[in-house]
């Protein structure tokens, strides 16, 4: 007989008998899974697909011929020739006994409509239980999103495995012993006071309703379900809306390629912003004679002091006329547009087309400028493509994961779960960040380096790799250019010399560099901690160099992954919402590209790259730009030195803002056009993994709010463009004709598969999760090393401003807070602006946690509540920028990285004082959203 390898053997089919029929099982599946494939249902409670089988409930017992005792089919694999019966009298009796015992303890009223226990009880015909009920714990309704009623708990520990093994949040425990055993949160704390991050994974896993969405939404009679994609972050989780009437009752995770059923608090509980009473429902026109006040935003409820309602015809006419007049009087250069990374690809595409063909310039940009512009600049220069080389879930194939300048547990929560899973499996997880964030707990190495010293740290790693002969010579020879320059540059960066600069011992730097270079597969993830510096491009160049010199790219489990922030920042950039490039990164000053688009669009196009976000704002301040169209962006909150940005916006002769709320930017507009929220429209978005995914419509928009695509179209017509797009599909088809990367993706396929990875040049292509396998998309096919030197931040602490300000996001709030502070649950969890300060620094300022402190820079001053955080390094303050009443961007420094034109949000000098006015009420947030929505 031929010898069979272990691998072959592991793949060999197993023939056995199930309830008398011959079936073929796989060695990697359990009896219950195999039975399900063959249409045989076996009762089960503690088992659920996607979680490790635990075998604790014994509802799934089956009889195996020749064995004395019954076997749990969720834990037992099939073996050749086995005879299994799940419906024999003995098996059934056992199954029913388990159900009857559990049923005896169930509360009289149900907490959900489709309890799995009730379903099995009915299916198996279990009668009224003969046993007395036990005493049960009372309800815990302390959490704004989740109702805990352990009287319905059957202790299957599905929630525990969801919390600890899937999401790795480590909140739920199974404590005590015997009859006292119970599910606990932390140390048996009320859920609302526990360390729970409200990902809702446990709720989704709970079979009985012991854990349910709060406020009885789980009992709502659902009218329909709609599959879509989460509107919040770049992870791009697929989800299902459960809709009752015109209201989303709750959301569940779908088995999407980036999330496999998982969601985070925003995706699961953040959708109700669409129902907030502040939604704009009618077009607004500024009242004649009411001046624009950059110092004070219009409280959303006082809109009528500034604006008057108008019909769509009227508003569109005023909007278009203003833009047209500026174009005619001052030329194309006097107009600019900001699109949005929160909208769809189709909206982004049409928006840039409107600016390029309707305004006549390339002055179009969006918030990519504020997040990964420097990363993209470095990637385009180095490897010819700004997108990620490998997808997040590829961490499953990595031996080492290097995360730098990113806080994925807050900002890419579901992506972080895959990293944590990998770490649990034994992958090395190296986290480098000035702040000790949650992921550090799971790291094998945590490098808390001094802020602003990224290049020192990374160059020291590069030095080590050269110094210790760990360079992948073949890769460098065959696939790259410019290595000699990198090597020469690296000479000066011995870890021993860099250690005092970056604050990491030379030995650690060397060890980490060695591990990175020599592992079978090393992946790099980075975020805004890398990109938002004046040396952001240099930071990214170093990371690229690390991957290239070690050949850690072009294979599964390797590569470079700048974690994209907004749900569609990848797609909006791909679609051309960038001043120097057309869709698919074809440069506007490249005659070939220009000709291609002139032909496609049928108009002459400007060959001069346009201005970037901060440049546009500066030009507006200087009155060189006089008119703007802003779709779904909020520069009055998101730009650095925001007082200046607001003044600039107020100086515009004509500002048209299209949004769903009266944002701080909309408050400065001449015309406000009410648009649709994500669940109210159809469109595609592209996540951080290059997956193009379809968002579907679940709700009707409120009042006269219109779909964004319709508004862009209408405005384009007002500018004299002859546009007739009626459906995103038509726009997408046009995009395919000028974007080779998605040329093979058809709308039909998106409707069928919901998610397609690009590059997908030809119809039917599977899409490439791992790119750069053979060549890089550069002219020569080679990647290029670009060495980096130490450039200090633009503003260093001094005696007057002795501390460093780091800005960023927090788990619950998105970008400028316009959406999330109007979401009931998210606002309830994080209602007020806070600053994270090391407890010793706080003590030095004489302040206690919870007290108001003031943070001031040369540009402004804010006051907000202090939070003691040992993860924040000494001498630093971390402030999330989502809060109008304490806007971090009043403080930030508007200096730019010379290549990416990205502002230095991660570093400026500030001082901290105890006291200051309590943060004011902007008219939303502050814990008011739940009541506003639920009425």
């Amino acid at each position: 007989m031929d010898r069979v390898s272990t691998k072959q053997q592991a793949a060999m089919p197993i023939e056995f008998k199930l309830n008398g029929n011959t079936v073929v099982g796989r060695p990697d599946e359990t009896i219950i899974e195999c039975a399900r494939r063959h249409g045989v249902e076996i009762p089960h409670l503690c088992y659920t697909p996607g979680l490790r089988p635990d075998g604790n409930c014994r509802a799934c017992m089956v009889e195996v011929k020749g064995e004395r005792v019954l076997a749990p089919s969720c834990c037992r694999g099939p073996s050749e020739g086995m005879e299994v019966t799940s419906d024999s009298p003995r098996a059934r009796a056992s199954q029913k006994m388990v159900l009857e015992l559990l049923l005896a303890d169930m509360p009289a009223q149900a907490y959900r409509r489709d309890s799995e226990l009730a379903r099995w009880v009915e299916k198996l015909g279990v009668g009224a239980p003969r046993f007395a009920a036990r005493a049960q714990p009372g309800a815990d309704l302390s959490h704004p999103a989740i109702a805990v009623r352990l009287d319905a708990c059957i202790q299957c520990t599905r929630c525990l495995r969801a919390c600890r093994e899937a999401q790795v949040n480590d909140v739920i425990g199974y404590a005590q012993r015997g009859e006292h055993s119970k599910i606990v949160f932390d140390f048996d704390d009320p859920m609302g006071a526990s360390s729970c991050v409200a990902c809702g994974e446990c709720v989704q896993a709970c079979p009985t309703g012991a854990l349910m969405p709060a406020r009885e939404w789980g009992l709502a009679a659902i009218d329909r379900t709609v599959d879509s994609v989460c509107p919040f972050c770049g992870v791009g989780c697929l989800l299902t809306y459960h809709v009752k009437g015109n209201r989303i009752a709750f959301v569940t995770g779908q088995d999407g390629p980036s999330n496999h059923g998982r969601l985070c608090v925003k995706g699961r509980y953040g959708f109700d912003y669409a129902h907030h009473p502040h939604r704009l429902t009618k077009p607004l026109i500024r009242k004649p004679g009411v001046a624009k006040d950059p110092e004070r935003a219009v409280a959303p409820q006082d809109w009528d002091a500034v604006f008057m309602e108008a019909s769509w015809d009227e508003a569109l006419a005023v909007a278009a006329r203003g833009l047209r007049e500026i174009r005619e009087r001052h030329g194309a250069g006097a107009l600019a547009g900001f699109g949005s990374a929160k909208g769809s690809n189709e909206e982004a595409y049409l928006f840039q087309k409107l600016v390029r063909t309707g305004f006549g310039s390339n002055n179009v940009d969006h918030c990519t400028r504020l997040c990964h512009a420097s990363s993209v600049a470095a990637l385009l220069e180095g490897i010819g493509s700004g997108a990620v080389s490998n997808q997040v879930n590829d961490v499953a194939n990595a031996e080492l994961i290097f995360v730098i300048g990113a806080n994925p547990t807050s900002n890419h929560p579901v992506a972080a779960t895959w990293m944590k899973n990998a770490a649990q499996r034994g992958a090395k997880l190296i986290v480098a960040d000035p702040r000790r964030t949650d992921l550090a707990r799971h790291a094998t190495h945590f490098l808390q380096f001094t802020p602003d010293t990224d290049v020192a740290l990374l160059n020291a790693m590069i030095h080590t790799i050269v110094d210790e002969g760990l360079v992948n010579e073949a890769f460098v020879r065959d696939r790259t250019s410019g290595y000699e320059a990198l090597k020469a540059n690296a000479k000066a960066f011995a870890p021993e010399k860099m250690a005092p600069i970056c604050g990491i011992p030379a030995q650690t730097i060397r060890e980490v560099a060695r591990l990175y270079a020599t592992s079978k597969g090393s992946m790099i993830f980075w975020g805004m901690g890398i990109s938002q510096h004046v040396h952001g491009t240099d930071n990214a160049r170093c990371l690229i160099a690390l991957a290239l010199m070690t050949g850690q790219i072009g294979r599964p489990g390797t590569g470079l992954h700048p974690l994209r922030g907004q749900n569609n920042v990848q797609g909006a950039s791909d679609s051309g919402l960038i001043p120097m490039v057309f869709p698919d990164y074809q440069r506007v000053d490249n005659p070939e590209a220009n000709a291609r688009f002139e032909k496609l669009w049928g108009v002459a196009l400007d060959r001069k790259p346009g201005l970037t976000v901060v440049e546009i704002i500066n030009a507006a301040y200087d009155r060189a730009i006089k008119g703007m169209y802003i779709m779904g962006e909020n520069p009055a909150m998101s730009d650095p030195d925001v007082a200046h940005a607001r003044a600039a916006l107020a100086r515009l002769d004509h500002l048209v803002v299209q949004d769903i709320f009266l944002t701080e930017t909309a408050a400065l507009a001449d015309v406000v056009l009410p648009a649709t929220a994500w669940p109210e429209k159809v469109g595609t978005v592209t996540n951080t993994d290059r997956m193009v995914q379809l968002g579907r419509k679940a709700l009707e928009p409120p009042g006269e709010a219109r779909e964004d695509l319709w508004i862009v179209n209408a405005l384009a017509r007002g500018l004299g463009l002859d546009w007739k797009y009626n459906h995103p599909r038509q726009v997408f088809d046009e995009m395919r004709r000028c974007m080779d990367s998605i040329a093979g993706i058809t709308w039909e396929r998106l409707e069928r598969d919901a998610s397609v990875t690009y590059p997908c040049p030809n119809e039917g292509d599977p899409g490439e999760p791992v790119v750069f396998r053979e060549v890089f998309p550069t002219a020569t096919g080679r990647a290029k090393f670009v060495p980096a030197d130490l450039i200090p931040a633009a503003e260093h602490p001094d005696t007057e401003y002795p501390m460093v300000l780091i800005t960023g996001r927090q788990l619950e709030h998105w970008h400028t807070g316009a959406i999330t502070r109007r979401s009931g649950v998210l606002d309830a969890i994080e209602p007020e602006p806070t600053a994270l300060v090391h407890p010793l620094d706080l003590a030095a300022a004489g302040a206690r946690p919870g007290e108001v402190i003031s943070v001031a820079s040369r540009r402004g001053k804010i006051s907000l509540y202090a939070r003691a955080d040992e993860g924040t390094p000494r001498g630093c303050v971390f402030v999330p920028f989502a809060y109008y009443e304490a806007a971090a961007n009043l403080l930030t420094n508007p200096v730019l990285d010379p290549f990416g034109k990205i502002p230095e949000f991660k570093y400026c000098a500030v001082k901290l004082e105890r006291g200051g006015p309590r943060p004011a009420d902007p008219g939303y947030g502050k814990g008011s959203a739940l009541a506003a929505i639920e009425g």
Partner: protein
Amino acid sequence: MLSEESLKKIEREIAKYPPDQKQSAVMAALIIAQDEKGWLATETLDSVAQLLGMAPVAVYEVATFYNMYNRAPTGRYKLTICTCLPCGLQGSLDAADHLKDRLGIGFNETTPDGRFTLKEGECMGACAMAPVVLVNNKRMCDAMSKERLDALIDELRESA
């Protein structure tokens, strides 16, 4: 925070296991921590979790599973009497009643002077020598007739 000495002892326990299986030392670490503090407060569990790189909730599971771990402060002397079946059949229930009478407290209670706490325990592996009383988890007293119980109480009352 645990004392230097306790930390050293815990280090020694950790060293008995491979570096990636530090959590195997959890029970020993909890005993050491309890010996120092007398009981396991939330902060103590947190620091043990941190020392062992475990999720705090996992430490809590262990600490609440075994009843030799005190999750609340006890009297100076914690008397645990085994009431499992073999001991029960050999007079431990009577012995327990006698203790309750003498001390004037029930199970899980502490005398007003803070000297004694009475607890019900599980089999201590000394069934042949029932009734069995354990003092502060460490000192095992067997064949506890009423006389011997009285003597034990007197001894502990008088001790410094």
